[in-house]
């Protein structure tokens, strides 16, 4: 887009520079027009017809590019120089200087540009120089505000503080440290200011305020409009000059928009974009999972696709089962696919995420095959999620209680307002928040309260399963203990099943029944909590446990796992952990291990392990 814009501008620039060569006739040449030459329709001789004085419109059009571009560039240079200086000075100096300069800017900003320019140009003299000066002098306010904001932001950066600490002069700090970071924004802004200046010039000359010694597009339109082009049907005299203006301004707009996109890239995707339909095996094969399993995930695979890139296998062939009242810990390093896994259970993946295989069976129903409307009825009512980072997961503009009530109303449309209000109060009290604070907003809550409010929200519809994505990270230990206690109580009282995503192995040991250890998108080990902590089989699990500080023993140094988690775009061909594994053999680098049954209710994927039983039943069955 930026390239297209730049191309359009270069073309116009070429026209302006080579106008005398390109144009058929010089617009300034005196012409004795005969009446039939006036407003002649386009012909071989006059490609764009003639105007009210019998002149060639195309030639005028080509010469007109000169004025537009001259005014655009020079006026915007003045605007940007003034606005940039004022903005940078105000932003850098702060205090009274800032207030005074910004007040001045506000005052100039509220006086409408064009009328002011009209008055100034009309009362001086409409020469090209005056027009440039006036447009430059009235159009700097936007730049000043923008540059000030950016300067303020840059000023807070560490290297500016450092430069000041070593005694650099203000001038040096501004020119060497701040200006280079303001510059990209200023360039984008300049392109916009140029287009505004060109529009303003054309408007002025359309209103009759143009330099009579030159030809400009606005002036051509002024003559055409005031001298009967409309009534004589001379569309070419109206269309052509306007097309010239649009060409140049659109070139600037595209260039500016394109540069802005490069400079300040926006999120490519959002949560309401159309999802690719999940690929799932509809056939209900005989399940080897326990008959009372509430949720059963079979062979789930998720890819992230991006144009011109190989798909990233975020989750691959993952299976587990969850029974009522069971708490499963989901552990693994950041980026191992934990969040992708839980989002795919309710098909809440970002648009780039594709479910490529597997089944998610909730009470025997495959959620991956449900139509969107039916799935929406399952969401929150059956399976609710406590999202990571409650500050962002709560809508800042709606009272917290309202957001909880919304969930209740969605899944129980018959509930009266009073019943909903009572329920919301109850839920908040349950997590230790006074019911009256439901009227408050998320920013009025402390971090712990927000997290608890999220949990209250998750409990709103009495779901059977709660997926808690690091619900206790960033909370102090007392709150953390309260939340764990609450989940435990609910599990006992309501038979709530929980998938608990966490980094904290201590918490896992405390409340979980089973543990699923993920590494690079696959299950490394899956077993009961006892088995994982007492007889870890997978080298990764062992490394993870070793890295967890044990306060019951004297330990001198923190142990860490060497290397980095695998990049999902370029996974190793063999075992994903092999590059970091201390006991890897040749086979580990060549072949991907399968999930083996290594104990009674114990599964691990490692070439070094011997299956205790033939791995026929692919679905692991935890205790």
């Amino acid at each position, binding site marked *: 887009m930026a390239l297209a814009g730049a191309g359009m501008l270069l073309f116009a620039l070429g026209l302006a520079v080579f106008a005398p060569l390109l144009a058929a006739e010089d617009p300034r040449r005196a012409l004795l027009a005969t009446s039939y030459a006036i407003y002649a329709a386009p012909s071989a001789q006059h490609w764009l017809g003639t105007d009210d004085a019998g002149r060639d419109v195309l030639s005028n059009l080509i010469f007109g590019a000169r004025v537009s571009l001259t005014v655009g560039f020079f006026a915007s240079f003045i605007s940007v120089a003034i606005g940039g200086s004022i903005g940078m000075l105000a932003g850098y100096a702060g205090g009274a200087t800032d207030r005074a300069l910004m007040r001045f800017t506000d005052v100039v*900003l509220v*006086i409408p*540009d064009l009328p002011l320019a009209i008055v100034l140009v009309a009362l001086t003299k409409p020469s090209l120089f005056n027009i440039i000066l006036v447009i430059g002098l009235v159009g700097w306010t936007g730049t000043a505000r923008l540059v000030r904001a950016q300067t303020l932001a840059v000023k807070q950066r560490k290297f500016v503080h450092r430069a000041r600490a070593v005694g650099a002069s203000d001038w040096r700090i501004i020119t060497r440290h701040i200006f280079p970071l303001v510059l990209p924004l200023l360039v984008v802004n300049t392109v916009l200011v140029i287009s505004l200046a060109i529009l303003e010039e054309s408007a002025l000359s*359309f209103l009759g305020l143009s330099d009579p010694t030159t030809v400009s597009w606005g002036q051509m339109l002024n003559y055409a409009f005031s001298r009967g082009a409309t009534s004589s049907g001379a569309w070419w005299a*109206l269309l052509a000059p306007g097309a010239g203006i649009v060409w140049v301004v659109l070139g600037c707009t595209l260039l500016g928009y394109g540069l802005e996109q490069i400079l300040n890239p926006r999120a490519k995707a959002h949560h*309401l974009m159309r999802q690719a339909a999940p690929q799932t095996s509809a056939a209900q094969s005989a399940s080897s999972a326990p008959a009372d399993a509430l949720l059963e995930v079979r062979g789930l695979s998720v890819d992230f696709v991006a144009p011109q890139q190989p798909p990233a296998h975020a989750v691959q062939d993952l299976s587990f089962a969850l029974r009522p009242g069971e708490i499963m810990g989901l552990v693994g390093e950041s980026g191992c696919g934990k969040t992708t896994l839980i989002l795919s259970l309710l098909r*809440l993946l970002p648009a780039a995420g594709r479910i490529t295989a597997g089944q998610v069976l909730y009470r025997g129903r495959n959620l991956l095959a449900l139509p969107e409307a039916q799935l929406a009825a399952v969401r929150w009512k059956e399976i609710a999620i406590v999202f990571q980072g409650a500050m*962002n997961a709560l809508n800042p503009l709606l009272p917290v209680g309202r957001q909880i009530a*919304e969930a209740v109303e969605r899944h129980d449309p018959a509930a009266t307002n009073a019943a909903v209000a009572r329920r919301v109060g109850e839920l908040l009290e349950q997590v230790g928040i006074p019911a009256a604070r439901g009227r408050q907003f998320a920013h009025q809550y402390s971090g712990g309260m927000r997290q608890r409010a999220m949990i209250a*929200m998750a409990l709103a519809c009495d779901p059977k399963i709660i997926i808690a994505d690091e619900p206790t990270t960033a909370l102090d230990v007392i709150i953390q203990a309260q939340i764990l206690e609450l989940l435990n109580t609910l599990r006992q009282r309501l038979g709530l099943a929980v998938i608990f995503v966490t980094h904290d192995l201590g918490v896992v040991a405390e409340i979980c029944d089973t543990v699923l250890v993920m590494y690079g998108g696959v299950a490394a080990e899956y077993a009961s909590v006892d088995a994982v902590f007492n007889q870890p089989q997978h080298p990764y699990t062992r490394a993870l446990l070793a890295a967890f500080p044990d306060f019951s023993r004297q330990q001198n140094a923190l142990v860490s796992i060497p290397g980095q988690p695998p990049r999902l775009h370029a996974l190793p061909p063999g075992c994903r952990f092999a590059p970091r594994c201390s006991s890897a053999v040749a086979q580990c680098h060549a072949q991907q291990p399968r999930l083996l049954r290594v104990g009674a209710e114990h599964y691990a994927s490692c070439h070094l392990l011997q299956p205790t039983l033939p791995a026929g039943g692919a679905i692991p069955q935890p205790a």
Partner: protein
Amino acid sequence: MHAGQLLLRKAGSALLTIGFVLVLNFFLFRVLPGDPARAGIKDPRMTRAAQAAIHQRFGLDKPVLPCLASLNPLRRGPCLVNPLQTQFFIYVNNLLHGELGISYHTKIPVGQLLRARLWNTAVLLSAGQTLAIVLGVAGGVLAAWQAHTRIDYAALIISLVAWSLPTFWLGLILLFWGSRYAGLPIGGQLTPGLAAAGTWAQFTDAARHLVLPTLTQTIIYLAEYLLIMRSTMLDVLAEDYILTAKAKGLSTFQVLKDHALRNAALPIITIVALNLGFTVAGAVQIEAVFSWPGLGQAIFESVARRDYPVLQGAFLLLAVSVIVANLLADLLYSWLDPRVQAAL
């Protein structure tokens, strides 16, 4: 901070800005060539007594500022002028009594002249702006929701092109097309001679005159609002709370309506208010094309006639409207966004 305090603070700041505008406005027309005191009395039809009356009424025989004379190095001396007897003070005093001066050209009080013109411009602007805001917001939401699809790209390209159109040229083209092929009037507010017709006939005639100017304005501003709405909406829809809302089982429509629209609408409010100044610039052009007897036309005519009191009054009126609109936008913003009050 309480809402009352907020109101007071914002209103105080607005008043201060109005004060500065007043000063700037006053001096702008004193330094420009064509002194109002001399220009005003050129009219030979005025009697000397009438001239003297006008002079006295607006203090044109008084010095501009108390000590301006004493700044002259050739006439250095004590400042002997009573500050209350200066043009500036008299100007401000007259303003406080609602006196904006008398038009040099038409001899009508400026306040009266501008009131009628302002009303016409307001009719023109409100119709176009309302349409542009409604359609722009709806289009922006649609484009953002359908991001990176054909609908989105079409909306984006059309908006960028529409944004690049000069207002007056779009008006010209629509005028050309509308008057030739759609049988719409070429300008003005009412067909001459229709004043005697029935109310309904007058109303439909006025509506027909409004079509093209309104359409021009709608297209120009629709593009801007759509682009802004689209980009804020894209940011909002990528927020975590949108995912929460979706996970709660809300339909796409509910998520858009209850969670996204309000959050994304906040920047639009500021832009619309700030835009008021620019919409007037657009109005000048539209009024010129369609011979619409509004404020922009009044400014344009007054420039040609050096009718300084009208210009001064129009500028003040416009600046005050923009300031008031910004004040309202600020208050609306803080009412819609609970975080603003907390941040103050």
